[in-house]
């Protein structure tokens, strides 16, 4: 009897392992399964002018599970940029193809997705996901695999990690400058001195909260109250009453989309209809505005991106996105657009698709004008050099000022 199980087990193990071995051999130039994966992106290649073998760029994002929204924007943006580049002749005379893998929103999933891409020798660079945790999880993988990888997270911790890791680039403005600009605007131009801070304890938001506090400290101000919550909180009565008790002139919020909208609605519902709110970048995202509606009017935010950005390239992309997909373009999409463009720029500079050559070319990109901002990749961390201070009026984020700063070298 036992024999039967064991037989079953061993045959299964050998079968499955044989299958894995075959599918992960990685020597074949085009792997059967990744071809299917990327068919979504490849389908739009109809306008491609060249019949050469495509240059393949990996995109590790989150397609399923709790953070699937990121993947939806990312896949859409990937289609647009693929089509754009291929219709204008491609890179080095070859079309590009974006291979998407699902990181599932877990560390293990992020590493598996990354490794699957890195193991495929035909992939020349990998775009990472929009989450500092995922980015940190793959940091050492990038070192090992020696392939140019980009990180979308904006955490200062990630900046330091990137600066020590030759293969990982933070193609995003570390939010220090942006948050500082927003607080500068609030304190110096609007004259507020009493703030209450509410933040999510999730990675990005808690980092942002730290930056907000730092920016206030720089101006000699301490937030009167700091309250935190965990992602998924739906009722903010206790948080808001805590903030109300200290009678702030303005509230600072650092959190994700859903929570930003709920907090705004509840603040307004509790009678603080005119309370100024200064929020992290999620507050001005079209997703948040779509949910929170008029409750978000008057919110100022340090955003990396808004759909009606003043950036020319960005505005064109934003319009194209809106036309193709029927909803407003969010930051998650614009970032993919920029990341892929920069990688293509690096490939052009390198002149070939050698992984090391592409990585070396990255450092030569010091003044790239992307859809979001200007990028300086002379060092690995904090490559995005700016963003926008925006104010939401009539449920539209309006740009108040553009932020830009030179990289300290």
């Amino acid at each position, binding site marked *: 009897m036992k024999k039967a199980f064991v037989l079953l087990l061993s045959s299964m193990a050998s079968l499955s392992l044989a299958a894995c071995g075959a599918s992960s051999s990685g020597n074949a130039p085009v792997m059967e399964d990744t071809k299917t994966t990327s068919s979504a992106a490849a389908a739009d290649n109809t306008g491609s002018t060249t019949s050469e073998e495509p240059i393949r760029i990996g995109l590790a994002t989150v397609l*399923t599970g*709790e953070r*699937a*929204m990121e*993947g*939806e924007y990312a896949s859409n943006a990937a289609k647009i940029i693929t089509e754009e580049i291929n219709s204008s002749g491609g890179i080095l005379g070859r079309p590009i193809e974006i291979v998407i893998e699902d990181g599932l929103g877990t560390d293990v999933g992020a590493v598996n997705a990354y490794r699957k891409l890195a193991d495929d020798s035909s992939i020349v660079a990998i775009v990472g996901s929009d989450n500092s945790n995922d980015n940190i999880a793959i940091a050492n993988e990038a070192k090992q695999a020696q392939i140019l990888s980009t990180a979308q997270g904006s955490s200062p911790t990630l900046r330091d990690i990137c600066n020590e890791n030759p293969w990982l680039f933070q193609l995003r403005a570390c939010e220090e400058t942006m948050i500082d600009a927003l607080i500068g605007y609030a304190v110096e131009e609007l004259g507020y001195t009493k703030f209450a801070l509410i933040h999510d*304890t999730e990675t990005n938001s808690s980092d942002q909260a730290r930056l907000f506090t730092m920016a206030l400290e720089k101006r000699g101000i301490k937030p009167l109250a700091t*309250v*935190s*919550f*965990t992602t*998924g*909180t*739906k*009722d903010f*009565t*206790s*948080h808001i*009453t*805590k903030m*109300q*008790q200290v009678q702030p002139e303005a509230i600072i919020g650092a959190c994700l*989309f*859903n929570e930003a*909208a*709920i907090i705004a*609605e*509840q603040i307004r*519902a*509790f*009678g603080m209809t005119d309370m100024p709110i200064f929020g992290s970048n999620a507050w001005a995202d079209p*997703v948040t505005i*779509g*949910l929170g509606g008029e409750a978000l009017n008057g919110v100022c935010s340090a955003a990396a991106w808004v759909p009606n950005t003043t950036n020319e390239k960005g505005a064109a992309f934003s319009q194209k996105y809106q036309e193709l997909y029927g*909803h407003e373009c969010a930051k998650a999409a614009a970032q993919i657009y920029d990341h892929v463009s920069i990688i293509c720029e690096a490939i052009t500079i390198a002149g070939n698709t050698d992984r090391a050559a592409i990585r070396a070319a990255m450092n030569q990109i010091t003044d790239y004008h992307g859809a979001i901002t200007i990028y300086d990749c002379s060092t690995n961390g904090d490559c995005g050099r700016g963003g926008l201070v925006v104010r939401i009026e009539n449920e539209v984020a309006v740009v108040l000022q553009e932020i830009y700063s030179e990289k300290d070298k």
Partner: protein
Amino acid sequence: MGQIMQLFVSGLSTGVVYGLIAMGMVLIFRAVGVMNFAQGEFLMFGGYLCYTFNQLLGWNIMISLILASVGMGVVGVLFMRAAYWPLRKAQARAIIVSAMGASMVFKEGSRLIWGSIPVKVDRVLEAPVKLAGGGIIQGQYLAIMIVAAILMLFVYLLLEKTFVGHVMQATAQDQYMASMVGVPVIFSIAMTFALSAMITGIGGGLLAPLFFLNNTMGSTAGAKAFAAIVIGGFGSVQGAVLGGLIVGLVEVFGGAYISTTYQLVLIYIVLIIVLMVRPQGIFSSKIQEKA
């Protein structure tokens, strides 16, 4: 004073929400003796049905709610037929696992149909209402309270006063005996699942403007409804609703006076304490264990 009043009002209003979801869970638990691990997904799916009628087709919110509820009734029966019925004689944990699989199907199916960008539906009552004691309650919460009260009354009347209700009760108590005296067990259980899904589905539609709809809405709300059932006692509908209120109050007052970061942790600490002190839940009577 005004602040405590506000906390109290908010606690009660979110508590009713949890109670409403918990009520749906309890109905199924009583009928089949297994916690439905896909109940949160009923909430999410009901919300999306409501969104389809209300936002995509542009119909009135009340009509959308009713249609969504009817739709959920069908979903409930299908769910029961696919995930529960084939396993009715298996161990409880097999049913739990199949419900978990179904829950994934619900979540991912909804994402494929409706996308992953969160959406919302219209509110039933728009403006916040000022209460006499000094608190403010959002109009939608007030609407939920009213609907919850109506649903509770409806469930009570249905179970206690109608023939169908008696059939459902009889099945819940002893499936074998019920089948012996001629109660069509499959019909009765299907009714229970349908009723549960309908209640939870309406909850989803009503919650969509407050919690916003995405495919993970069910897990977060479901976690608290689960706590509500355990705290209130999972034998009775009343216990579930009262448990929901306790969860709501613990959440708000715990947040205000202990820690906002650990709100969810506090709820579960209360859950464990209640289990230690009164395993059968606060509002259920002790069941004598049979030797």
